[in-house]
């Protein structure tokens, strides 16, 4: 489904602060795989997502999604096939527009007719049904401005916006990190539900190591713009958080440096 070959991205090339964010990284995802990604601060996790979404072009290498060469395509063209949820709940929605307008904006990418009224009556029914599945009472607040919702509610709306037209790839960039633990759990459950129902090919960056090992089908550990290791199947199901940390220090001769992640482990 997703094929990244030999991706290189250097920021501030030719200056004192030159920094290689992606270092000859190659990655292949089969359709329906749910990959979790962990790594220390500055490992290149978000840079990898930015490269896939087209926030910048690669210095070297190529990106293909479902046979389509994305390498030099502009961001909005790729967005047709990719759904992305950010850590910051403010980023994925338009705060001064209502829930149904936000959803319609996302939905219409499949049916866009410029001068038809939006949201249409059909859309309103569809959105209400889909929101009702999540049990957050959002279906009764279709005309509420999204800016008035809580962070967790906004993330659920964003998740639905990203998946209401089934994307070829779903990218989740620490999308529960800004939420309180109970809400984070709820949003994570809804995420799993959506991914399972739609058989989505998904990549999820997380700072929570145990959730990285228990969610999805495969786990990547990234470091300095490379994939340090890639575990799946039986190896993964037997692995504990401590094993993961030991593997990390053995291969980099460093201890794991991610402030949030340490906190997550002391719980």
């Amino acid at each position, binding site marked *: 489904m997703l094929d990244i070959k030999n991706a290189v991205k250097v920021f501030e090339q030719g200056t004192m602060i030159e920094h290689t964010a992606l270092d000859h990284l190659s990655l292949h995802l089969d359709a329906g795989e749910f990959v979790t990604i962990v790594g220390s601060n500055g490992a290149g996790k978000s840079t990898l997502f930015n490269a896939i979404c087209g926030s910048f072009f690669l210095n070297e290498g190529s990106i293909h999604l479902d046979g389509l060469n994305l390498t030099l395509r502009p961001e909005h063209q790729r967005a047709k096939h990719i759904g992305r949820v950010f850590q910051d709940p403010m980023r994925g929605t338009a705060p001064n527009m209502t829930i149904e307008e936000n959803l319609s904006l*996302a939905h219409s990418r499949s049916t866009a007719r410029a001068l038809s009224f939006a949201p249409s009556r059909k859309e309103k029914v569809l959105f209400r049904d889909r929101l009702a599945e999540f049990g957050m009472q959002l279906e009764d607040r279709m005309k509420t401005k999204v800016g008035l919702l809580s962070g967790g509610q906004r993330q659920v709306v964003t998740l639905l916006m990203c998946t209401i037209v089934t994307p070829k790839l779903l990218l989740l960039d620490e999308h529960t990190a800004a939420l309180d633990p109970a809400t984070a759990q709820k949003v994570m459950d809804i995420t799993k539900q959506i991914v399972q129902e739609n058989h989505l090919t998904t990549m999820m960056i997380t700072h929570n190591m145990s959730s990285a090992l228990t969610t999805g089908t495969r786990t990547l550990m990234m470091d300095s713009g490379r994939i340090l290791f890639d575990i799946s199947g039986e190896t993964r199901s037997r692995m504990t958080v401590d094993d993961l940390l030991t593997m990390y220090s053995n291969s980099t001769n460093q201890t794991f440096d991610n402030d949030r992640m340490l906190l997550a482990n002391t719980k």
Partner: protein
Amino acid sequence: MKLIIGSLQLGLLYGILALGIYISFRILSVPDLTTEGSFAFGLSVSAAVTAAGHPVLAIPAALAAGAAAGAVTGILQTAFMVHPILSGIITMSGLYSVNLLIMGGASNLSLVRTDTLFKILPSLSKQDAQTVLSLIACLLTLCLLILFFKTHIGMCIRAVGDNDEMVRASSINVDACKILAFCISNAVIALSGALIAQYQGYADISSSSGILVIGLASVIIGEALFGRRSVTIGFISAVVGSLIYRIIIALATKYSPLPAYMLKLVSAIIVALALSLPALRLRAAVRRQKRRNPDA
């Protein structure tokens, strides 16, 4: 009575200007300085075409002229990444020469002996024709804009002004939306200029200076009354704001000792005060907090 009717007519015609400014200022959240140029562009195109004997044709011509001016600003801002304020200033400055060119090198053009839209309506007195035409023009523009911003493309434009990063991530072409919004906004502003030229019976290039502040004042007065709610209410409140602004101006010129040329200073002060209101409120709140809690 004549004073009130006159200011209502002007309020409606300048209400169209306020509608155009509402699009850039509130929906896109960019104060668009192209306004000063595109209003005069509509004014001069309308005057020139009317003088050539086509007062009806003058309207679509002015709309097209305004849209073209908006497109220039929009393209500068998106494709060439020029600062939003600067790109408006650039278009506005360039248009100054263009407008003089259109009016044959003169800074004003009289339409006194030409047929204008306001004179060719049969079986209506001059004043009734003025009232009816300004009412129709303003309501028609208002309704079309309200409907447009309920369509898919209109919603995309609103979302671009609200959170353009999110729109980019939903596969909508943000740049195209912005350019289209500037085209519509400036076409509407030029329409206002075009009608004003025919209404007054002359076009004067200097009448567009400070027009942005007048439009902003209307938008802000409207918001003071209606609050900031939906786009539909926003459009309606902009027109109402313009009507109130014209009445204030009419009363001020009649009863205040200030000479008419002080009006723009008064408008500027109104707009500055209205825009500073949130900050002033915040400071007052902090001061109240301090008085209640001296240890803080």
